[in-house]
């Protein structure tokens, strides 16, 4: 077997193994010097990005990829002597998994490039980069696994590494407090998920998502299933920052370094992925998806409105952006919630699927523009030394590139054409309008308030007289911001590229739980 064949055959496992090995070796390699360690970390992140792209290609070309750890061959999901049960850990990569893996690895790579300069001179960088890689492992693992307990393990890796990174800059104890809150909330959530997994395991003798979904469909949706579903859905909604369980978001995002805020924001999207995976694939065939969809829609509406109105109140740039993350998550919940509420009806083909595509496209767009905005906030704090907008002003005089990047991110998040945010918002407005016009009206008002809020930041930080005699940020930070800006413009002008290769396959994969189950239980080949 050639190296290329080995990579293609084992791509799902390598997408986890490479950053995991990278994380544990980073503290050792750091002993050879910072430059060597940075080359190592960026190489690992770059290779992980390549693997994520490879997974997207494989899924788009050959369909759902099933990878069985220890299986011979690696696609043997149900061995002949297993009694028809998938007994090993199985990764199941469909369009939605590959999509989430790609956004996770992309933000990891961009954050890595940004950190080259932004963390220079700070202590414990070996641990910082090790944790950064572990966070990528957590996100990728949540996206790729088809096993519920495995999902819980990766969720824990995600939460622990994120909490440690939030407290990386102690900031007079504030960062530690934020990390503590994040850790407590995450731990309680993880316990609830573990409890739910125990319920499902007790009922169905299986941990594989496809197997549980199939058996639940055969035996009917029980009261215990309902409890398990509520535990999982509400916990993952909390982890993705949905109102009224969003309180940890401004604390966590606000105190983390800029690039880590961007990463935690995408880590929350991994929880959102988990939420959608459970709602559609595990419970979608058996539970009342209409009620479940409306539950997500209501959470989405609350998140959009309360997130944006709270953001406008803030004068701390990071907390302001954190509240906007809550608001943007609302759009995604709204779009995919409409898809879920109409699943199995004629309305699904009329507008439900399109709403889902809008919601999923918004996940990609949010990763790009929100990631960019967090990086620009980090760049401002890097130079000015404060996150208080009241103390800022006139930065566009000297930080011209940062100002341009900020403006691109701000216009994109506000849904101004021709940037990428407009396309996904248009898709959401038009489709949710057909379910209930009130939903589209709220979404449009939220978009206007978003623009107002980001204009406030632009005016406060960049406009006005020159208050600080600061230089532009170092090149690696500009490159990281430039990469995200490029894709914002690209997907704004050519949304069909993202739609064809990433968004539509992801939406169709979610909407087809039978295809997912059949692929795993049918032998995986």
């Amino acid at each position, binding site marked *: 077997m050639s190296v290329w064949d080995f990579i293609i055959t084992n791509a799902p496992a390598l997408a986890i193994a490479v950053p995991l090995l990278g994380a544990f070796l980073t503290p050792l390699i750091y002993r050879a010097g910072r430059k060597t360690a940075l080359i190592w970390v960026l190489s690992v992140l770059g290779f992980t990005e390549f693997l994520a792209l490879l997974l997207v290609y494989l899924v788009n070309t050959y369909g759902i990829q099933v990878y069985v750890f220890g299986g011979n061959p690696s696609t043997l999901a149900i061995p002949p002597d297993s009694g028809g049960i998938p007994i090993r850990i199985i990764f199941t990569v469909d369009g939605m998994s590959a999509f989430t893996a790609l956004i996770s690895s992309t933000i990891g790579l961009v954050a890595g490039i940004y950190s080259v300069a932004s963390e220079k001179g700070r202590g414990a960088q070996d641990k910082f980069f090790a944790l950064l890689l572990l966070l990528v492992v957590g996100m990728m693992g949540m996206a790729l696994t088809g096993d519920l307990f495995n999902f819980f393990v990766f969720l824990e890796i995600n939460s622990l590494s994120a909490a440690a990174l939030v407290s990386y800059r102690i900031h007079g104890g504030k960062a530690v407090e934020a990390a503590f809150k994040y850790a407590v*909330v995450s731990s309680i959530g993880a316990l609830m998920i573990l409890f739910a997994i125990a319920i499902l395991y007790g009922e169905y003798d299986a941990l594989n998502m496809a197997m549980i979904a199939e058996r639940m469909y055969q035996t009917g949706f029980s009261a215990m299933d309902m409890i398990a579903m509520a535990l999982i859905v*509400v916990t993952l909604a909390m982890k993705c920052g949905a109102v009224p*369980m969003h309180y940890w978001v401004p604390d966590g995002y606000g105190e983390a370094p800029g690039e880590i805020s961007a990463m935690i924001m995408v880590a929350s999207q991994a929880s959102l992925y988990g939420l959608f995976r459970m709602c559609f694939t595990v419970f979608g065939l058996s539970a009342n998806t209409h*009620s479940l969809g409306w539950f997500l829609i209501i959470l989405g509406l609350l998140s959009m409105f309360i997130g944006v109105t709270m953001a406008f*109140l803030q004068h701390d740039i990071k907390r302001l952006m954190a509240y906007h993350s809550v608001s943007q998550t609302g759009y995604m919940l709204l779009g995919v919630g409409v898809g879920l509420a109409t699943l199995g009806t004629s309305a699904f083909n009329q507008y439900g699927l399109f709403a889902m595509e809008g919601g999923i496209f918004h996940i990609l767009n949010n990763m790009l523009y929100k990631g960019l905005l967090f990086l620009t906030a980090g760049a401002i704090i890097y130079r000015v030394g404060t996150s208080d907008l009241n103390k800022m002003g006139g930065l566009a005089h000297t930080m011209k590139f940062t100002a341009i990047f900020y403006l691109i991110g701000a216009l994109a998040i506000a849904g101004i054409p*021709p940037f990428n945010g407009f396309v996904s918002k248009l898709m959401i407005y038009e489709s949710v309008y057909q379910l209930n016009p009130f939903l589209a009206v709220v979404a449009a008002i939220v978009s206007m308030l978003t623009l107002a809020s980001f204009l406030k930041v632009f005016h406060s930080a960049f406009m006005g007289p020159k208050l600080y005699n600061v230089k532009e940020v170092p090149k690696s930070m500009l490159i990281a911001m430039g990469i995200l800006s490029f894709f914002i413009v690209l997907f*704004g002008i050519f*949304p069909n*590229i993202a739609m*064809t290769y990433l968004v539509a396959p992801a939406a169709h994969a979610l909407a087809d739980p039978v295809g997912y189950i059949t692929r795993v239980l049918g032998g995986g080949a």
Partner: protein
Amino acid sequence: MMNPFNPSISTPSGIWNPLVWILVFLLSLLIAYVIYLKGEKQRKKGMQEEIFLSGNKADGNTHIKASNIGWGYLEAMKGYYKLMRDIHTGIINDYVGWFLGVLATMLLIFLFWGGVR
């Protein structure tokens, strides 16, 4: 096969083509420039070009701070923001309380609306 030069997205009630939007935007900029060229050439120098903030003459160093932006909106929404501030306590016990509250609500919704598909 996807045509990268045709970025149209069909929506339930129409179509979105960013290239057309850019063309229209550039055209509108051109029209605006033509109108500008046809503007009043005899405008007075001096006071008409000076900056005023709320009727007061502003020097070049005036800068409105973030907390003062949107004062009218915040004042109009004072009741709402008081409620929001009261809810956002920053206390971890409350965070967990809200989580449990939503969990109970979801269970009640499914209990009354029916959980089975």
